[in-house]
């Protein structure tokens, strides 16, 4: 019987006329596709289309193409479904995958259009006029009290602990362990240069990054990896990760092969043991338990802001309201397109709801309860461009988190094989020879370039809208129109359809 009924997804072709046998491809491929016997040979079944070999072949001798193997068309049994069955019939077990939901669900961002000024009010040129993106995160009072004091006025209200960001964009949580130390370094350097923050994810913070603490949000997740008093106090805020958009309701599993010395000491677990994050926090079985953890973390940190990260699930608005009332300062909404290092494909692709809709209902819910000032909302899990940033802010986000986009800037090709630990780009891997490929200075520069470019675009959008501060776009759904959305979705988003 045939050993593997799952046919190769990609074909790797080496043009032997051009190849000068430098063997660079054999070293570069993290997935062990190439071998060298007199000449380069390729085991195409292993190829994931990460393009590392293509980019690094000096002779452009390598092509990676989709396997054109014909399958009889069947509209309910598309090829991916058939392959899934072959795989599971062969190995049993869940199908794992990496990165975000790749099914063609409706993308609401792509059905929202932004307004601009014409005639009746002037647009503003961001190259000539100040254009403010500065953003603050955290709980704030409903009002400011002022005292008169010799000729002037004095503030008589404690505003509390809030975080200042120069731009409304931050880096999403990606744990050291699931990504390499050089990814963390790149993010920390970039966050510092951009005046924003990165988020540790659930794997603790390597000591080398302690100096960047002013630009780091530290996470406390169900496995409590790397959580100790010094760690909690290193960041500007602490985040309780309840859920992740790519795998709502699911725990995490970082296999023992990825727990080398450094990861082990950062996570505070023995070398080579699997790092298992329980699905729930075992001290949070209800909202009042969450309140206890929030306040425990506040006590432990001298009342730094506490963020609570949840996946956008059906009842997200009520959950968010509970989180705000439990004392959180920030609610981090991770949409169902959010990335991951590893998730069961069935969960990644079918659980949760789109960020855009969750964001709209959470913002509205908090407003109708009069508690929108109590929390800041971060929208993440599906932010692909500055247009998405602007739309998310208009729907009500205080800031957005980017994870996948940051990794793509670092070279990620979205091959979705992060869970294998073989990432050829040195991103989702702990293999030292692969990790070394990502130079943190180079990485930071790419991230800074990307986010600066988005910031410029965002300023241009604000100027076109005739406003010169991002807060005038925030929650301003009047400046969005929907196109091609059904009436109910438009209503839920609380935007008008184009033409109104």
């Amino acid at each position, binding site marked *: 019987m045939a050993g593997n009924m799952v046919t190769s997804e990609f074909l790797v072709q080496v043009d032997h006329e051009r190849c000068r046998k430098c063997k660079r491809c054999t070293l570069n491929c993290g997935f062990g596709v190439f071998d060298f016997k007199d000449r380069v040979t390729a085991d195409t079944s292993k190829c994931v289309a990460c393009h590392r070999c293509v980019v690094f072949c000096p002779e452009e001798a390598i092509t990676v193409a989709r396997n054109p193997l014909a399958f009889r068309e069947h509209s309910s049994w598309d090829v991916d479904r058939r392959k899934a069955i072959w795989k599971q019939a062969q190995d049993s077990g869940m199908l794992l995958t990496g990165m975000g939901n790749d099914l063609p669900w409706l993308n609401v961002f792509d059905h929202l259009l932004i307004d601009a*000024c014409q005639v*009746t*009010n*002037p647009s*503003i040129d961001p190259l000539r*006029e*100040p254009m*403010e993106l*500065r953003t*603050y995160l955290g709980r*704030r*009072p*409903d*009002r*400011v*009290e*002022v005292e*008169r*004091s010799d000729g*002037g*006025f*004095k*503030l008589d*209200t404690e*505003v509390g602990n*809030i975080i200042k960001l120069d731009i409304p964009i931050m880096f999403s949580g990606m744990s050291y362990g699931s990504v390499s130390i050089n990814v963390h370094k790149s993010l920390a350097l970039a966050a510092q240069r951009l005046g924003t923050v990165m988020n540790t994810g659930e794997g603790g913070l390597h000591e080398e990054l302690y100096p960047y603490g002013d630009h780091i949000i530290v996470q406390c997740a169900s496995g409590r990896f790397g959580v100790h008093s010094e760690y909690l106090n290193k960041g500007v805020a602490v985040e309780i990760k309840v859920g992740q958009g790519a795998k709502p309701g699911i725990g995490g599993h970082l296999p023992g092969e990825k727990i080398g010395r450094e990861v082990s000491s950062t996570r505070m677990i023995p070398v080579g043991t699997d790092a298992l994050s329980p699905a729930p926090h075992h001290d949070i079985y209800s909202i009042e338990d969450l309140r206890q953890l929030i306040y425990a973390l506040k006590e432990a940190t001298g009342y730094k802001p506490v963020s609570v990260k949840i996946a956008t699930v059906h009842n997200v608005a009520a959950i968010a309201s509970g989180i705000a009332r439990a004392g959180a300062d920030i609610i981090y909404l991770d949409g169902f397109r959010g990335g991951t290092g590893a998730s069961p494909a069935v969960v990644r692709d079918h659980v949760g709801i789109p960020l855009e809709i969750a964001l709209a209902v959470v913002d*509205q819910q908090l*407003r*109708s309860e*009069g508690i*929108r*000032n109590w929390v800041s909302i971060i929208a993440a899990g599906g932010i692909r461009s500055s247009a998405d940033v602007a739309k998310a802010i208009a729907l009500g986000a205080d800031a957005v988190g980017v994870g996948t986009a940051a990794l793509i800037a670092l070279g990620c090709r979205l091959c979705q094989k992060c869970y294998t630990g073989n990432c050829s780009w040195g991103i989702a891997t702990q293999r030292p020879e692969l990790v070394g490929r990502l130079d943190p200075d180079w990485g930071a520069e790419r991230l800074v370039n990307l986010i600066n470019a988005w910031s410029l675009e965002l300023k241009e959008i604000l100027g076109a*809208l*005739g*406003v*010169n*501060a991002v*807060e*005038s*776009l*925030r*929650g*301003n*759904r*009047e*400046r969005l129109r929907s196109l091609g959305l059904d009436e109910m979705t*438009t*209503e*839920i988003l*609380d935007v*008008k359809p184009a033409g*109104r």
Partner: protein
Amino acid sequence: MAFGDQYSRWRVDRSRVPAACGLSGVISEDGAMIGGDVIIESMKVIHDRGNGLGGGFAGYGIYPRYRDHYALHIMFEDPGGRAACEELLEADLQVQESEEIPTRPGPGIEDAPELRRYFAVPRPEKLAALAIGPDDFMVQLVMRINTTVPGTFVFSSGKNMGVFKAVGFAEDVGEFYRLPDYSGYCWIGHGRFPTNTPGWWGGAHPFNILDWAVVHNGEISSYGINKRYLEMFGYECTLLTDTEVMAYLFDMLVRKHGLPLEVACRVLAAPFWKDIDIEDDPASRALDEALRVVYSSALVNGPFAVIVGFSRGMVGLNDRIKLRPLVAAVKDDLLYISSEESAIRQICPRPDRVWAPNAGQPVIGELKGDV
């Protein structure tokens, strides 16, 4: 609030109308009485800033006989509206006097609705039952009438002041309402240039709630968030006009949150971070930071020039980069604010000083004593 309500509101309601305009205002800080003809004269000069689709005035100190009563000016476009409205008024208020607002029908003013005014105070037992102050009570009553009684609109609800507005050129509106028969210590006027026809008297300026009267030239690009922010504090923006938002923001910041007027202006036309960051005085920097952080959704962004009348004076304010004209002048105890210097010189040929206020810098005229 249910999403459905909001959704149906914009479907059936008037949509927002961009408008440009001319404004003028005058106050005697000594409390000397100024005739209504003065503000009409001033508005005539900036006739071309309006297009005849809305004009209006507010006068302060015009009802000394009823200085402690709320003066409700109400328009009835629906014959059934008056009975329903008066039933509400009777239930909630002690009405001291109810009469037609005197008018002189003339050219340029057509299709006038029935216009009446009521001098009244809330019934004490009603206030006690709700445990709220009379001002909040009146705000709720006005919003209730304006949202629930068909064809009925309360367009003025302050004490010892009144708003007079109509579809027409400002000077015609002033003559229609016989403003020369009134005198007050402060007047503001407005001529409107909407970019399509609202054809509705309630849509003219000033927009009023309690003693606040706002005349406004501009378009508030941040309208959507300002409105949603106000809704959180119980203000229903029913008219979908920018000006309404401005009036409610003043009411909330000054009356409800107790901010001094100058400070409220620093919320609405907030200084830029680049300027806050280099403020020498740490107390003033801390205040500006707090205002921007706490009141970010109350920043009024986009081009505007407003003159806001309140019980003791008026304030002129420009947006933070001054995208609409605003000129001020003083002569003795008189402060003038207008879209154009010509409108000031028309009624004050030789002012002591004329200047263009800087972006975001309020010009405030306030009564020195009692009137």
